[in-house]
């Protein structure tokens, strides 16, 4: 069982500076993290990410979300309880801890492009002998 205090919460940013393009970035999870249990996606412009965004996310070359997976399926609004906003992934061994994201911005008639930030939060567990 995992508790909040043996969870490592990390934040990684991707800047989306041009429309209709894919932005690839690689991040490294904390070296103490043993299992990746969930992720959450937010943005400086939620509306842009909601309508225009899709992404591919890999953990050590293992595909967590395939190309074209719409960002809106990974977002939660304010009206979702904070403890329920995490997208659970089970317990995936972090291995080298390499997280790769390829975020694609695609034009949408309802929303005009302005540069925005996409943030991916990762939640990993440290393996401990004690539960406390």
């Amino acid at each position, binding site marked *: 069982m995992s508790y909040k205090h043996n969870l490592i919460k990390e934040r990684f940013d991707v800047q989306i500076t041009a429309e209709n393009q894919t932005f690839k970035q690689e991040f490294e999870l904390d070296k103490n993290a043993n299992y990746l249990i969930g992720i959450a996606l937010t943005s400086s412009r*939620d*509306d842009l990410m*909601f*309508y225009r965004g899709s992404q591919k996310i890999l953990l050590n070359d293992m*595909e967590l*979300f*395939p*190309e*074209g*997976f*719409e960002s*809106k*399926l*990974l*977002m*939660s*609004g*304010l*009206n*979702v*309880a904070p403890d*329920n*906003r995490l*997208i659970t992934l*089970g317990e995936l061994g972090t291995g080298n801890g390499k997280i790769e994201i390829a975020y694609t911005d695609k034009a*949408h*008639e*309802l*929303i005009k492009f302005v540069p925005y930030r996409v943030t991916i939060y990762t939640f990993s567990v440290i393996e401990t002998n004690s539960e406390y």
Partner: protein
Amino acid sequence: MKKTLIHSIQIKSGIEKVMFQIKLPRNTKRVKSIKITTNGYSLEQEELLKRNNTIEDEYYKKISQNNLEDNNYKLLITQIDKKLEEAYVINNKELIAKLQQEKKVLLEKYKEYLASIERNNSKSNVTVRLIMLEIAEQEMGSLWLRIPERRDVLFSEVVKMPTHQYGLAGFNRAMNVLPDFGKGKEWINGSKESFFSIDIDPTSTIIEGFYSNLLKDLTNGYQINIYLNLEL
């Protein structure tokens, strides 16, 4: 091992029916869940959306104007309070009585003003909600998925665009705005996006699909995405 497969279908204006095949990876054991998303709407819906957005714009403009007015009232009340404090210090009973009377009148005006805002807000809220309901009732098409060898339909759905995907008004309602946030009436009521849970042994690597488009008056085409969560 789990894998998500996405199959997209492009629907263009004038197309009524689409047959398609989804190729599954060879090592697929089971299909665990399905989700359908879409991004299209008809001309009729577009007009409703425009109407809705105008009402929402006016609503938000009013709110910002109201905030200014609200602040003015609050400023006046604090100014009188300060003067009252000073009057109490010098024990000027006449001035205290005068200021108290002024404050009473101001508070009554403020109360009236707050009540009028409440009435206006609920009116525009109701109108917007009615339009959103009108939009929500419109269907985009029907989708069937089946396994060719068995000829049975494993999944069927009337594809609708969720209201929160219609323009900024709907989006704000779903993602940002809690109408009664802070008043203690509404706190949280949402949930994460979830997939439709299903458990299918596909036997072959092909799933057949059939989509029937109900939107006849399309300006642009639209896309249907079928997400399949697979167990490999």
